């Protein structure tokens, strides 16, 4: 079965939809209450760093290790510009 979109849930209870293959950050641009600012969209600047609390995703591009260390990545910290969902996702802000 293929999904035509996934639900991305935000820490404030808001949610938006993301198409398969699309980066979570690109989808978030269509959502008016986005909780983060938009930076480089290239995995370099780190301003779209969040934690994936539940759900699975595929990494589209490399994330700068200046912003997501190997240990952080194991804890689900990712840059929203670098991942696309493979299921519905729940996101959080949390330090690593």
């Amino acid at each position: 079965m293929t999904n035509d979109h996934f639900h991305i849930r935000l820490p404030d209870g808001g949610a938006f939809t993301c198409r398969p293959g699309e980066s979570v950050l690109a989808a978030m641009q269509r959502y008016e209450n986005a909780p983060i600012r938009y930076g480089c969209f290239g995995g370099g600047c780190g301003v779209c760093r969040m934690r994936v609390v539940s759900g699975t995703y595929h990494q589209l591009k490399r994330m700068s290790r200046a912003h997501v260390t190997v240990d952080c990545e194991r804890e689900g910290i990712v840059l929203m510009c670098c991942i696309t969902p493979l299921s519905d996702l729940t996101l959080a802000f949390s330090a690593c």
Partner: protein
Amino acid sequence: MALNQSLRPGLIQLRVLDLDETLKFYKDILGMDEVCRTSDGRVCLKTYDEFDHHSVTLRLADEAGLDYVAFKVASNETLQEMVKATEQFGYTVTEVPADSDQPGYGKRYRFKICTGHTFELYSEVALAEKTPGTINPDIWNEPPRGMGVIRLDHFLLYGPNIEEAERYCTEVMHMYVPELCNKPDGKRMATWITGSNKPHDLAFVEYDKPGKIHHVGFLLQDWNHVGQVADLIAINRLKKDIGPTRHAITRGQTIYFWEPSGNRIEVYAGGYTAYPDNPQRVWDVDHLGRGLFYYEGEIIPSFLEIVT
């Protein structure tokens, strides 16, 4: 201060997360030419209007940002004098042998300054294979591609203690400071520094984290080309930060956007002609928004806060 000692920022080595994708941007969209590859896989590039061997080197790394910037100075004599003065200033200098890690480059001298950035000085570099014409020359040999940037122009660095960095540039590199911005307590918030008639060869913003780069600036011909760049940003789905707009500081006409690895690029046209004997222009922080973004008249948060 003099106009004939520190010639220009001539080389910058940037870290990229995706070499193929980012190189494609520098060549096909920004319009640079690939000059060579090093044995360790770095790629050297130049613009169509630069004479020297190359001006940008891209290195695949696990984080984006700046490896180092190198300044070309007028002669070996000037170089030796500046190296001695750099050591006297308190920075430890190491020598990078000629034709080692940067093909075509003569001996370079490397040191870290107080802001955490690695600087280099050199006086000799081979001419590129393809240079602009010099005998009854045409304006170009092959039509410029994409954004058609003319040359590497300047960069803005973020780090701590920029007052010392400014003092290094003026005392050792014989540069001068056409424009600056002070905080209410009189401490420096930002400084625009040049060794030429350009309003800036480099600039610094005070920042707690060391070694950060805000952007690399490339020269465009005029405002029409700034518009053409805006079209190319949109067509190629690049992420724009700001512009097209004008700076009151430097008076440049500009757009900022990010290349595919997240390093911020500025394309820049115009700007006033700087002279070391002109009075310095001074900005208060509460006017900085208008100084940076003359048409918007206010600070754009992404501009000040996002660095690599």
